[in-house]
């Protein structure tokens, strides 16, 4: 059974059909790629999965539980983490504080808890080291460079130990070396059992990383398969890769 099932999701804005009966499965323990031309509905799909948008029709199931229309905080609590195309961090909080925002909140609303217990703190620093920006922990996050912000955003999600991570253009606007670092980290996490769904235009990145690739066009899935299969699919070449 798929870990994350997206069934027949449709979503329209005004007259524009952003998603039409889109169905995608994300298998546990795999890295699934999602590619498609600009405006094919990839980001909208992410928004639907993570509760930022309500679909007009269709369902999203996670580990067999329906999470359609669940609010973003509920989705996150279920174990689905996500990054954004244009990186979103909390600019006026320090790097370390950013990490603590996402730390799990057990039960109470945390009003009676300090935000940095020793254990949480060491966990946060460990993750910052994992992505390589631990030396910046005390700095306001707005001072980070674009790439560093991407890494922070990534680390931020990891603190909650999500089962699935949705990455929206992780390599966009990042230099190739950093892209490779990121790919390494993703692979490492994947080996530890984290499932990924990745939207990306950088084909090298997608081809090198993903186990399966879904291709979207005009809000619907037009192809699915291994990277090699997809690359040679004439429909994909026509819609996406050109030639």
């Amino acid at each position, binding site marked *: 059974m798929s870990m994350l099932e997206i069934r027949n999701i449709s979503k329209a804005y005004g007259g524009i059909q952003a998603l039409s009966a889109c169905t995608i499965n994300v298998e546990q323990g795999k890295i699934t790629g999602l590619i498609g031309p600009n405006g094919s509905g990839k980001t909208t799909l992410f928004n639907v999965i993570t509760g930022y948008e309500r679909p007009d029709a269709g369902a999203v199931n996670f580990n067999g539980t329906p999470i359609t229309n669940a609010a973003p905080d509920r989705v996150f609590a279920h174990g689905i983490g996500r990054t954004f195309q244009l990186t979103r961090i909390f600019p006026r909080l320090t790097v370390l504080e950013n990490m603590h925002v996402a730390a799990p909140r057990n039960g109470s*609303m945390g009003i009676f808890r300090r935000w940095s217990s020793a254990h949480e703190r060491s966990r946060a620093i460990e993750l910052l080291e994992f992505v390589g920006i631990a030396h910046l922990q005390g700095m306001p996050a707005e001072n980070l460079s674009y790439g560093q912000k991407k890494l922070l955003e990534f680390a931020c999600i990891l603190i909650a130990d999500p089962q699935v991570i949705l990455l929206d253009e992780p390599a966009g606007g990042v230099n190739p070396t950093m892209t490779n670092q990121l790919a390494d980290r993703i692979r490492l996490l994947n080996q530890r059992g984290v499932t990924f769904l990745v939207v990306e235009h950088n084909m090298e990145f997608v081809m090198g990383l993903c186990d399966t690739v879904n291709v979207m066009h005009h809000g619907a899935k037009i192809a699915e398969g291994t990277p090699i299969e997809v690359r040679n699919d004439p429909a994909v070449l026509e819609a996406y890769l050109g030639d």
Partner: protein
Amino acid sequence: MKSKPIWLLALLAAAVALPLVFPNPTITTIAVLTVIFAAAATAWNIFAGYTGYIALGHAAFFGTGAYSLAIICQHWHVPADFTPFALLPLCGVIAAVVSLPLGLVALRTRGHTFIVITIAMFFVAQLLAYDLRGVTHGSAGLSLPIPLWSGDFYNMPFYYAGLLILLLALAVSWWIRNSKYGLGLLAIRDDEDRALGLGVKTGPSKLLAFVISAFFVGMLGALWAYYIESIFPPFAFDALFDVAIALMTFMGGIGTLVGPILGALLLEPAQQLFAVYFGQSGWYLVLYGALLLVVILLLPEGIVPTIRKRWAQWTAARARSSPNSPAPAPPLPPSPTSQHPAIAARGEGGER
């Protein structure tokens, strides 16, 4: 830094001792009004400063607290002694209860809409104070019991009650700032949707902060009502109260712990004294307005952040000039002591 607790106690003692050292009732009158505003600004900052939602309707809770005490005193025939002080928390609770539905409605919106909805709610509250004559006596206002304390002693209980509320608000503010809950509020201020996506329960969090600030402001309204002894709708529900606490908070440094208090300590006495000394000549408003303009233009970030920044620059400069200072931080990433957060990140606006 061993001496810190001593300093802390000394300053607290200074605040406590103020009316004993300067017993003149004019000074203590200004002091009473100042602590009330300092506490109100601190409470407002718990909501507006931490969540970034600018609410300009807290006068509604101030008025609710004031009217609550007046009505309670009338119905229960409360004697004119220390009993009304014991009723302050109850008035705060009433204001908090009133704030709950208002917050639920208003907090569905953001930004300017939120600002204006809170203003509109304030006006509705004021209009109700006029219109619900059965309870509020409309424009005739309500009287509170008048304690028969001597003039010299009179301000003391009010000052200490206000100071106590201020310390309480400050403690709550400090506690929230250091709690996981408070971190969630700050995350809401920076990027609410992202915070939601990271598991922060944004709705309840905002509402709780709103209610907490309303609770304190309600208590202060009740204290103020007992102090002034008579309340009328335009004064208990005063639009300038909202502007005043926002101004104090911004001037001191919004979102900081001490900024609101600092702003209140400067503005409220300044306003009172300007009216006393320049009122007769007609220059009071001009001078007060000019003072505002100068402070905002010179210290746009507020006093506390500016001082903090200057201090950091000064220590950094000292560190640099000392001979065996560590090598400057590597060029990339930008060094942690660098002071350009606002301009660099906001980009375009700042540079040319």
